[in-house]
């Protein structure tokens, strides 16, 4: 199905179109990351409808838009977004592969200090794996950590 020309249209309207016209895509990928030495490993699960948008192309804004909004939000006097138009008026990104979509999602939903320095230190702070590689039970969930046997690149 061809994506309509969404340039300049509200992102929410694009998501409505996608919900009506695209089938969700359950990704097998998971992203395991550690953003604090005091907390257990976290596992990012991609959303099927979002993944469908990413694979379709022409719907999602570039990831730098979210970074710009995050900069605004980090200001001490932040009250509300005044540059929300970036989400709606920036040209949407073209179709991505599933792997490219995961990279986008990492940069959107995982703290930047993790993905920017994921391979610095004694072991990786972030690992992309398949769902089957995760523990199959929830036992000791609050102690889960990335294996020390994984070498940083």
């Amino acid at each position, binding site marked *: 199905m061809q994506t309509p020309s969404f340039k300049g249209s509200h*992102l*929410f309207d694009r*998501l409505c179109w996608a*919900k009506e016209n695209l089938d969700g895509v*359950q990704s097998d990928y*998971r992203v395991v990351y550690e953003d604090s030495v005091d*907390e*257990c490993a*976290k*596992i*990012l*699960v*991609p*959303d*099927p*409808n*979002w993944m469908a*948008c990413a694979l379709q192309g022409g719907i*999602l804004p570039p990831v730098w838009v*979210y970074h710009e*909004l*995050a900069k605004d*939000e980090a200001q001490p006097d*932040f*009250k*509300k*977004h005044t540059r*929300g138009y970036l*989400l709606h008026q920036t040209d949407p990104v073209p179709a991505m592969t599933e792997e490219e979509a995961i990279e986008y*999602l990492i940069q*959107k*939903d995982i703290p930047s200090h993790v993905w920017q320095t994921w391979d610095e230190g004694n072991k990786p702070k972030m690992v992309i794996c398949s*769902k089957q590689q*995760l523990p199959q039970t*929830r036992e000791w*969930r*609050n102690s889960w950590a990335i294996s020390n046997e994984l070498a940083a690149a």
Partner: protein
Amino acid sequence: MAGKIIADTQEHSTAGSIATNYVVNGSAKAKVSYNGSSSTIRSSFNTSSVSDVATGRYYWANTNAFTDTNTGILSGATHRTGVQSLSGISGRVQATTTQWDLNTVNNAASSADAELGALGTGDLA
């Protein structure tokens, strides 16, 4: 054919009327249904991911950001997935304008994995 109805008020024949800004501002802008035991998103809208953070704790990320972190209101429900006596979900104030911090607890107020459904309301950026 696409069209547009512009109206400030909707009126029912017997039940009264409501200003349409109540509809616009009061509608949910994001939703998610998530199985915390199997780490699977089953149904969603305006959602980019859910992160399994710890037992009974999840980060829910949105695609269309909200305008701020103060006006979003969360409602939700849980039901049992092998964990007894789950009593509820608490959505703390939004961590960011694109992320909610969800916590499901049992009757003893301890965090517990759950199947959860959540709605996010508020103004979109």
